């Protein structure tokens, strides 16, 4: 029996692949198994190839691997697309009655289970349930009690009536019984045990959305774009319960300006988009920074440049977020490294934005955004959420921040660079916020001394933040190892599993996973202490490796992937091993 089980359902867009996969993932999660899902999808509504993959184990799983044990193939292409991952003994469930599947060839050494999905579904109440029949068949193959599927089916269909739920349950049983009867002589090598653990199953976009509500975000404006749309759909219908609102803006230019307006109104506000949207939002970025407006801008990266590969993985926007916009603009860039951290870093982003009164980029990437993973519900302990709104003045304290002529000073020159904030409605707090260089009261100025004082003040906030906040990286692997692997963003999961594989092969490495891009931890001593340093990231140019080299004044080695597919644990282990063996390319 393998420790983990890898399953997929694949077909054309429009075949209901996503909801079928989600039902199975939820059934596993509810049965106390860990789940990690991934999606192959294209930018189209119908046709093409799309798949939903599930990796499950009783232990934590945080990566995809190059192995597929059971595949539900609705199209011949589904088999072709997965030949590399299928292995001897892999089970392929298909409907041989389907015209396109009649002549399908099951690759040598694999087990083809021809199940009349459509006919069985029709018997149970409707052809539309054929995927559920397939799920039932998969349960039989994996020795996964079908009752676990029931609660997932109830969750999925309960709004549509008990009859539909019952029909689906029946369809699942029809699939299970068919395999049990027709393939009774077959021995399958799987046994998906269940546990009493409680898990929640969510993706990165949902974690960001939940984090935003927890952090007191009340206003969201956005424009739909893959793979950030799930943040918006998550918030819609939920944020209202907490007194908030979501606006679908006419474009990203508008979205960020609406969020800016709400933030000037005193709300915790956010927008989320992907690279092409960041391009447009960059227009307003300098205004946010120089008017010292707290705002969280979430960038769920996808493959670029331009329209690039819109449904594929990449971490190519780092430089854009660090340097985008004319002039010199202070900003923070946070990059959560896991799905649960998407929640916590969102909370942190709102606090940092308000404490330091500047724009904060919160960046995830496609793999993390559309991947679901199981966590213990305690991972998201709402009692642990802390809110720090920074230096907000009210009618009692505003008097300490007035100019000699009696005007409120929202850009007061202070030792730590942080000035007082007054929300509209605060008596005597009326002031101008502007993209023009300004004096302490926010009035336009081109005075040479005031210009320098304001620039220095804005930059001093960053220095203050460096001193006051904890920018440490996450560390795992062997702390005493000679070799150091550094990564950022969503690669952490694959790397954590790669470290175990390397460990089994006698290769010890120390890993630093960096969630803070700016400000970021000083890794000089870590790199100096290592024999070889490898920076792993999903882009071609090694944008984070460049930053590390800039910081530590030393060359590092690079492992890069930019074919649109995330790192898999086994592949990454091999890649790191060969890079370490080759030595530094100085």
């Amino acid at each position, binding site marked *: 029996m393998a420790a983990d089980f890898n399953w997929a359902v694949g077909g054309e867009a429009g075949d209901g692949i996503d909801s079928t996969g989600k039902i199975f993932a939820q059934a596993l999660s*509810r049965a106390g198994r860990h789940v990690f899902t991934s999606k192959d999808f294209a930018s189209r509504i119908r046709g093409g190839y799309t798949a939903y993959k599930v990796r499950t184990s009783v232990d934590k799983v945080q990566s995809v691997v190059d192995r597929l044990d059971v595949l539900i193939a609705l199209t011949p292409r589904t088999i072709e697309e997965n030949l590399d991952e299928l292995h001897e003994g892999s089970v392929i469930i298909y409907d041989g009655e389907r015209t396109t599947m009649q002549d399908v060839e099951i690759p040598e050494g694999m087990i083809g289970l021809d199940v009349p999905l459509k006919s069985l579904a029709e018997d149970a109440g409707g052809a539309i349930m054929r995927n559920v029949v397939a799920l039932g068949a998969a349960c039989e193959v994996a020795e996964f009690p079908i009752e676990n599927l029931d609660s997932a089916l109830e969750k999925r269909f309960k709004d549509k009536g008990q009859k539909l739920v019952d029909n689906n349950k029946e369809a699942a049983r029809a699939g299970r019984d068919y395999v049990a009867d027709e393939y009774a002589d077959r021995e399958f090598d799987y046994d998906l045990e269940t546990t009493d653990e409680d898990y*929640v*199953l969510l993706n990165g976009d*949902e974690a960001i959305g*939940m984090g935003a*509500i*927890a952090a*007191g975000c*009340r*206003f969201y*404006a956005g424009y739909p774009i893959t793979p950030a749309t799930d943040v918006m759909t998550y918030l819609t219908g*939920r944020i*209202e*319960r*907490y*007194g908030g*609102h979501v*606006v679908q*803006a*006419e474009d990203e*230019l*508008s*979205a960020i*300006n*609406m*969020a*800016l*307006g*709400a933030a*000037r*109104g*005193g*709300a*915790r*506000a956010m927008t989320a988009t992907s690279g092409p949207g960041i391009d447009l939002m960059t*227009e*307003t970025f300098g*205004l946010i920074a120089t008017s010292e407006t707290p705002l969280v801008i979430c960038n769920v990266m996808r493959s670029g440049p331009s329209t690039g590969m819109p449904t594929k993985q990449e971490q190519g926007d780092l430089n854009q977020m660090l340097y985008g916009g004319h002039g010199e603009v202070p900003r923070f860039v946070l990059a959560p490294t896991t799905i649960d951290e998407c929640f916590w870093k969102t909370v942190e982003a709102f606090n940092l934005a308000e404490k330091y009164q500047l724009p904060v980029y919160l960046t995830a990437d496609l793999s993390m955004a559309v991947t679901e993973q199981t966590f213990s*519900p305690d991972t*998201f302990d*709402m*009692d642990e*959420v802390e*809110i720090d709104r920074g230096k907000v003045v009210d009618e009692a304290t505003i008097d300490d921040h007035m100019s000699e*002529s009696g*005007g409120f000073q929202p850009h007061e020159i202070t030792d730590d660079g942080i000035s007082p904030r007054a*929300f*509209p*409605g*605060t*008596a005597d*707090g*009326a*002031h*101008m*916020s*502007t*993209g023009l260089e300004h004096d302490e009261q926010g*009035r*336009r100025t081109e005075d040479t001394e005031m210009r320098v004082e304001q620039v220095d003040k804005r930059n001093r906030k960053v220095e203050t933040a460096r001193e006051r906040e904890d920018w440490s990286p996450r560390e795992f692997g062997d702390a005493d190892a000679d070799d150091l692997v550094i990564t950022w963003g969503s690669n952490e999961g694959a790397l954590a599993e790669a470290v175990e594989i390397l460990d089994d092969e006698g290769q010890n490495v120390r890993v630093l996973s960096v969630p803070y891009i700016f400000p970021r931890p000083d890794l000089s001593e870590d790199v100096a202490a290592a024999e070889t340093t490898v920076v792993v990231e999903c882009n071609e140019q090694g944008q984070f490796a460049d930053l590390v080299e800039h910081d530590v004044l030393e060359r590092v080695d690079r492992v890069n992937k930019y074919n649109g597919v995330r790192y898999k644990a086994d592949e990454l282990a091999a890649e790191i091993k060969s890079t370490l063996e080759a030595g530094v390319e100085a």
Partner: protein
Amino acid sequence: MSSDIRFTDFKSDKQPTWCPGCGDFGTMNGMMKALAETGNDPDNTFVVAGIGCSGKIGTYMHSYALHGVHGRALPVGTGVKMARPDIEVMVAGGDGDGYSIGAGHFVHAVRRNVDMTYVVMDNRIYGLTKGQASPTSREDFETSTSPEGPKQPPVNPHALALASGATFIAQSFSSDALRHQEIIQEAIEHDGFGFVNVYSPCVTFNDVDTYDYFRDSLVDLKEEEGYDPTDREAAKDVILDNEKEHQGVIYKDESSVPYHEQHGVDEDMSVIPDGAPESATDLVREFY
């Protein structure tokens, strides 16, 4: 809100750098008077300004304000109003800001019908960049970038607004101080998006659309016998009449339901709890 607010309380201590005689002085005075007259004060008012000569208005007025990016004033105003329904929001900009770079936002702001006032200081020219054609310049208006005129019809902002489902469309003239103030006041009091295009002559770069021209040609709808601004068809005729210049409230939908009522957005979003909201754990449970 105190009742002893005077319109001069809305004046900042910055002296306008507009050219002497600029229409924007009158436009601004009318806005300040209308704000004071409708019971607002600088601390509960938020003015959003665009870029250009008109964009400087936020600097010369005293209130909570944002002087933003060119063309994006309406989205900013929308955000302020949604977050703070208790705050009076007034957005001001020029014809370039509103009908050229910001034209897309104009259409959608009209559709949303957020309860705010939008004042466009329309001088039919780009002044701050020293005299180029604007989206409302006449077809044959010669400028440095259109030596033979733009040779394209000017944008008809009222028609754009009407077609986008506007609930309040008005035209005023900065030099007709009383009428201008009266019209702005009506826009402020309107439940929804109050749109006022203001003829605000540029005395330096536009020698066609002058004070004299508007004074001689403007027909006040208030004095037109039988004109009913709640009659959409009548408004359409006025708006599409290219032969005449009008001032007054052109169209007003008295059954207008503003955005915050349509969507139930009525809370002051600046107030949040010290930790996660009560019952936030429900969000976690949804993922079981």
